[in-house]
Structures are given as structure tokens and as C-alpha cells.
């Protein structure tokens, strides 16, 4: 709760500084008898407000991370904490229970050890809340004062404020790099820990996947961490079955909509395709599991495949393909539209029919763009999670039969991280290694595809 109070405090301080500085700047205007002052009063106001807001917000950001740790430490130092079990899950549970009661999130505790800890928690919260508010006030007043004393009629507040604005803009754009860096660092870090327990060779080339989260973490059975069946399942469902559905359907939809359809039909069908793209994947997953998978099993059983399972790769792949159709069609649409009209008209003028023009002129000319779109579609399909989590199974299976159950990289990431496993166990860490492989593969596909799209666009412009 306390970060919210601190934020409100910061807002109040900033507003006070803003108003005070503005009033002060108006007195300059009066004192100089309507003569020029170097910046408008508003800029003086913003200058002071920024001086207050930036240090205070920085402090709040740091404090919201540091304070809970300080609270924990001071509670652990209290005499009541001596009765806590030494380590592990139980200790955390007791601490959480006591913390929740002290916070007012829970009504009562069930554990006696926790009851003794409620008061130390309350005291610690009160103490550190007070410190937080006091320091926020001190920083805000101090820096506000420094800024306020600088205001003079000839003070170039606007230049300063604009410099600060530019810095903020630059920082905002750096968030993207920080995010990328955060992804890489968090994945690499955990992946290295995983490879300390299971060798990369076993992981990348092993053909048996069956991690046991209950096994002794210090001595994992490396032969259980062979990820080939997962890679195969991912490629089979996402890059083969889904694309067999999505590429022809998406391409033909785009061709029909751009070349044949009446504008009025187009204006109805295009938004409808966009709806298809906007349906959440969890809904597709439910649709696949509830309707498509049983249907496929029944059909397969009726034509004599006795091994058909209700969680088949085919069901997940088909539904995923449908999900990708609008994506492929809009990429194909763009690249066909980028082909110059002169090429099309030339072909038609030579006497070719419309379909011949499309097949022999438009598609070859648009091919790089279409291929890039397909690569992006594959990258999306292999990263897709919910459909396969709900419609495919968790059983790893190295098979080319689409009616069998199969599992994918994303399914295993979910399976490994939503269990009760601890973060020191190779089964849990393997999720990060799988995530890292997925990240690298999709990154490569996206990178090449974006390059191709960019280069292709430029040739006709």
C-alpha cells in the first residue's frame, strides 16, 4: 500500500512546487513592469515540478524494492523469529501469513508461530512507512527549494525544461532495449544454470523427454532431458500442419479480396477477417479442445484409425492454421498491392486472363514479400501457446502421425513452470532453456523476414 501513498505524496509535492513557481514567476512579470522575462511562467513552474518529481520518483522506485526486504530483515531479527523452521517452503508460508494479517489482507492466522510474528511485522511496517514518507518529503522539499531559489527574471527555464523533456523521450525509447536485454539476460542466466546440470548435447540431441520434478535435483537423469521430440512437435504442429492450412487459404483470400471481390464485399469481409485475428488464443484453444479434437477423433475412428487420440497434433495444427489465416492474408495483401500497376496492366493488355496475370506476374513479383510473411507466420505459430496447451497433450512423442498426441516447446514451458517445483531443479530450469531456444529461433525468423520485407519494398518505390 505504501508506494501508492508515496506516489500521491510525490504528486502533491510536485503540484505545490508547480503552483509556487508559477506564482513566483508572475511576480517577476509584475516587478519588471511588464518587461520581458526569459521564459513563460509555466516553464518556471515545470522546471520546479520536474526538480521535485524526478528525484522523488527515483527514490520511490528504489524504496518499493528495498523496503519489503528491510521489513523482512527486521522481523527476522526479532526474538519471535527464532522459532521459525530453518528454511524452505514452510518458513515462507508462515512469513507470508503473518505479513498478510499485518497488512490487513487477511483476517486471522492459523499458525501459532505466525501469530507471534504479526506484531513485529506491524511494527516494521509502521517504522519503514514512516521512514519512507519522511525521506520522500525531505527529498521533495530540498530539491524543490534548490530549484525554486534559481528562479530569476532572466532564468532560461524553457531551455532547461526542454532539455529534460528530451532526456525523458530518450529514456522512454531505451525501454525497448532494456526489455530485450532483460529477456536475453534472464533467459541466458537460467539457461546456463540448467546446462550446469544437464549437458547441452544431451538437451539438444536427446530423443527422450520426461523430466521428473520429484527427482533429486543434484543428480538429474540427463537422458530424460532430450528436447528433440519437443522441437519436432513444435515444427510439425506450427510449421507443417498449421502452414498447410494457413498458406493456401490466406493467399487465396488475399488474392480474391484484392483482385476479384466487389468493393462492398471487401469492405465487409476484411473486418470479419480482422475479427478472426482478434479472437484470443485461449478461445481458439477451447474451441480446438471442445469441438475440433473430438470431431477429428470420431472421424478418424470411423474410417478405421484405432489409435486416434482425443488430443491430436492435427486438431491443434488445424485451429492454429485458421488463427494464422488473417495474418498471412494481410501480409500477402500488402505485398501484392506493392507490385506496380503497370506490370499487371501490361500482362492483361497482352491478352492474359486475370488468373494467368496473378499466377505468372503478380505472385512471382510479390514472392519475397509473401515468403517473408510466411516466415513471420511460422514464427508466430511456433510461439503460440494456449492452443497447443489446451488441444495437444503433454506427452512427448516423436512421430509423423498427425492423429497422435504430441507436445511442443511452449506446452512444456507452461507445464514445467506451473507446477510446484523449486527454482533449483533442472526440470524447472529446463523451461528457461526451452524459452531461450524458442526466442533465438523466432528472433532469427523475424529478423530475416523483416529484412526481406524492407528490401523488397524498396525495389518498387
Amino acid at each position, binding site marked *: 500500500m505504501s508506494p501508492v501513498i508515496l506516489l500521491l505524496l510525490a504528486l502533491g509535492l510536485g503540484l505545490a512546487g508547480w503552483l509556487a513557481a508559477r506564482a513566483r514567476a508572475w511576480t517577476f512579470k509584475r516587478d519588471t513592469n511588464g518587461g520581458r522575462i526569459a521564459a513563460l511562467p509555466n516553464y518556471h513552474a515545470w522546471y520546479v515540478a520536474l526538480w521535485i518529481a524526478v528525484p522523488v520518483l527515483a527514490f520511490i522506485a528504489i524504496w518499493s524494492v528495498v523496503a519489503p526486504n528491510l521489513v523482512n530483515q527486521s522481523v527476522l531479527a526479532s526474538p519471535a523469529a527464532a522459532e521459525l523452521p530453518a528454511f524452505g517452503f514452510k518458513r515462507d508460508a508462515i512469513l507470508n501469513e503473518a505479513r498478510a494479517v499485518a497488512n490487513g489482507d487477511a483476517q486471522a492466522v492459523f499458525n501459532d508461530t505466525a501469530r507471534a510474528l504479526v506484531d513485529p511485522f506491524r511494527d516494521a511496517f509502521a517504522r519503514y512507512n514512516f521512514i519512507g514518507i519522511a525521506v520522500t518529503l525531505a527529498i521533495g522539499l530540498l530539491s524543490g527549494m534548490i530549484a525554486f531559489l534559481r528562479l530569476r527574471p532572466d532564468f532560461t527555464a524553457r531551455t532547461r525544461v526542454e532539455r529534460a523533456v528530451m532526456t525523458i523521450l530518450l529514456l522512454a525509447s531505451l525501454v525497448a532495449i532494456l526489455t530485450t536485454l532483460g529477456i536475453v539476460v*534472464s533467459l541466458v542466466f537460467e539457461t546456463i544454470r540448467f546446462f550446469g546440470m544437464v549437458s547441452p548435447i544431451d538437451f539438444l540431441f536427446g530423443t527422450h523427454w520426461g523430466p521428473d520434478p520429484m527427482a533429486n535435483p543434484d543428480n538429474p537423469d540427463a537422458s530424460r532431458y532430450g528436447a528433440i521430440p519437443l522441437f519436432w512437435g513444435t515444427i510439425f504442429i506450427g510449421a507443417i500442419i498449421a502452414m498447410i492450412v494457413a498458406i493456401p487459404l490466406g493467399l487465396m483470400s488475399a488474392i480474391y479480396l484484392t483482385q476479384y471481390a466487389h468493393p462492398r464485399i471487401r469492405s465487409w469481409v476484411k473486418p470479419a477477417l480482422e475479427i478472426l485475428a482478434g479472437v484470443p488464443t485461449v478461445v481458439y484453444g477451447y474451441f480446438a479442445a471442445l469441438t475440433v479434437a473430438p470431431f477429428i477423433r470420431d472421424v478418424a475412428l470411423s474410417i478405421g484409425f484405432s489409435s486416434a487420440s482425443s488430443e491430436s497434433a492435427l486438431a491443434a495444427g488445424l485451429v492454429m492454421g485458421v488463427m494464422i489465416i488473417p495474418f498471412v492474408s494481410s501480409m500477402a495483401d500488402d505485398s501484392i498491392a506493392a507490385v506496380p500497376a503497370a506490370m499487371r496492366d501490361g500482362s492483361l493488355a497482352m491478352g492474359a486472363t486475370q488468373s494467368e496475370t496473378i499466377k505468372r506476374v503478380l505472385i512471382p513479383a510479390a514472392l519475397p514479400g509473401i515468403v517473408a510473411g510466411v516466415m513471420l507466420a511460422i514464427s508466430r505459430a511456433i510461439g503460440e501457446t494456449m492452443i497447443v496447451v489446451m488441444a495437444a497433450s503433454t506427452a512427448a512423442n516423436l512421430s509423423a502421425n498427425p492423429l497422435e498426441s504430441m507436445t511442443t516447446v511452449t506446452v512444456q514451458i*507452461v507445464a514445467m513452470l506451473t507446477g510446484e517445483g523449486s527454482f533449483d531443479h533442472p526440470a524447472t530450469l529446463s523451461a528457461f532453456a526451452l524459452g531461450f531456444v524458442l526466442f533465438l529461433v523466432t528472433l532469427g525468423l523475424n529478423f530475416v523476414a523483416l529484412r526481406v520485407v524492407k528490401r523488397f519494398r524498396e525495389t518498387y518505390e
Partner: protein
Amino acid sequence: MSNAAVPTGEQSEPRPDRREAFEARLKKRYASEKRFRLLGLSAIIFSMAVLAVLLFTMTVNGVGGFQRAELTVPIALSEAGLSATPADLQESGAVQLLEAQGLPGVVEYYAIEALGEEAAAEVSPQAWRDVADAIIVDPSLLRRDTVFNLPASSDLASGLNGEGSAESRAMAEQLSADGQLSSNFDEGFLSRADATNPQQVGIWGALKGSMLTMLVTLVLAFPIGVLAALYLEEYAPKNRWTDLIEVSINNLAAVPSIIFGLLGLAVFLWLFPNLRSAPLIGGMTLALMTMPVIVISGRNAIKAVPPSIRDGALAVGASPVQVVFHHVLPLALPGILTGTIIGMARALGETAPLLMIGMRAFVATPPDGFTSPATVLPVQIFLWSDEIDRGFVERTSAAIIVLLLFLLLMNGLAIYLRNKFEKSW
């Protein structure tokens, strides 16, 4: 088109054999043209058909999800001897208080009174909570005799639908013939939270969690996205750094969402270990995912503002910052908003990254704030889809209908904004 060849053939020496071959070829080409066209049409019809089947299945299943089987039980609370005062009922522990004063027993007694021993066993064991909620909303019920519609057990509910065991079907038939069992619109579905019994669940908890999470996402992603777009489009020098920023934004927009979940798990939960499954963490994770979408659409909107506006402002003495914040940004804002709504709609439907940060927990009370445990609508759908109980199928579809309505509303708003503010300079 090809007709031009025919008259020339006719005017010169007519050569029947060649003409025949030509006609045949032309016919073949036209046939292939027609086939191709039909192929395109059928591709579109197929996609539309899948969409229709999907919506149809969800609606047919979901309509039942908004209803529940209820048993009619008159309860004389005035004679039950509950001593709770209206002031007590304002407190946060009111439900527990009513439980301690024996409300479950009271409800059971009147259920047996009204329905008989055997049928009363089919009142959902948690039904007294509905009575407690009603009392908390309107304490004057304690002094009156009221007829309550209490949820029936799942067995009886499936009996009413003509499924389940022959026994429960017979009982359901008997009770509905007596007018004591009926399938009513379940107002509580929109106002309750998750529960273990499909007769007792609601989506308000998940909906509230979704709203809180979306709020955090919006508050973080919108300013950062807009400011980054302004910087890249208006001020950034062309050098290696800005290239790096651009590449990383484009790549982030295409990174699988589950990777963002791994990031949230490794970084945010490491920083804030006490906030597992809180809307704050979920919102932060989704904000990182949504931000690139906003940046990309924002840059396109900013690019569409004609340079003459900037030149005009610069010419009358505005500084570069004033040009952007006074002129370019207001003109680009509708376009940015459209992109933001689309990005938010995508975040609203996102499930996988939230599973990673622990939002799949069973949460039976709606979240109080940004730091209390919560779940969101898509995750709720995922959790219910895993339940074996038949009643959950309908509930899941009903929740999907609510989610799709929200998305339709958001996308409709985006299209409306786009049409309303679409400008050509």
C-alpha cells in the same frame, strides 16, 4: 482481352482446324480462370465458416452458462433468531459472522421443510452464501419472510438439462412439475468470483482482475510508447544507437508472448517476491508486450502529420519541443489512440505470460487492489476449461462470450475512432 485475336482470325483466311484448337484452348483458359476465382471465393467462405462455427458453438453452449438451476425455498429469517445487527453486517467479516450464528443450519432446515429430506440434499452445500450475500446487501431481510432461489447441486442441474443419471432426471422432473425447480437467469454470474462448484461461480473476480491489470498496462505502456515514438520519429539522429532501438522495438513486437512471461517471472517476481499473481506484476509484464505495438502505430500516426505543420510552427518561433507537443502530438493523437486500443485488446486476450507469473491461482474473492492476488478473464477461461464437471463447459462458454463482447467493443471503438478522425491533408 483475348477476344481481339478472334476477329483477325475471321477476317483473314478462315482456318477451321486452328480455330478449333484456339477455341478449345481459350475455353480451357477460361475454365481455369473460373476455377481459380472459385478457389479464392471458397478460401474466404471457409474462413468465414470457421468463424461462424466458432461463434455459434460458443453462443449455443454459453447461453446455458448465463442460467442456473435454482430451487425455490421460502425462509423465515425473522424466526431464525439471527442476532446480527445492520452495523455488524457492514464489517468485512459479515459472512463469517452469519456462518457462526448458524445461517447454514437455518437454510438447511427450511430447505428440508420446503422440499423434503431427499430433495433438500440436492441444494448446493454453499447455497447459504447466497442468502448471506442477500442479507448483507439488504439487512431488512432479517425481519421478513422471503422466498429465496437457491442454487441446486450440479447433479440436479444436469438432470434438469436432461443429462446425468436417470435418478436425478426423475427428481428434476418431479421438482419442476411442482414449480420448485427452475432454470433462471443467473444475475450472480456477473457479480461473483471463482468457486469450486459450477453452480456457484461468477466472473466478476476475473473481470475486475482484468480491469486492474489493463489499467496498469495502460498507465505504463501508453506514455512510454508515445514518448518513444515521438523521439524516434521527430528527434532521433540516424546512427547506430537509434538503429538498435528500432530493431529491438520491431523484434519485440514479434517475440512470442510466453517469452515476456518468462521475463516477468525472472525479473519482476525476483524484484517483488511477495506480489505473485498480483495485477501489478501482470500489468507490468503485459505493458512490456504492448509498448512496441503502441510505438509502431504511434510512429505511423506521427509520420502522417504533414511537414508543413512543423515548418509553420517553427517559422513563427516555436522551439522543437513546442512544435511536437503543441502541434504534432495533438494531430497524431487519434491515430495513436487507435493503435493503443488495438494493443490493449491484444493484451486483454493474452493468457500465456500471465500463467507464467502465477495468475492461475484459485482466487475466490475479487481482488481489492493492485497488489492482491487476482486472476484475469482469459486465465479464468483456461482454468474452467480444465474442470471435469459438465457444468463448467457452459460457464466457460459464457465467460468467452463476455470476453468476446469486450474485445468487439474495443475493436469497434478503434474502428469508430479511425473513421471519425481519418484526415487527408
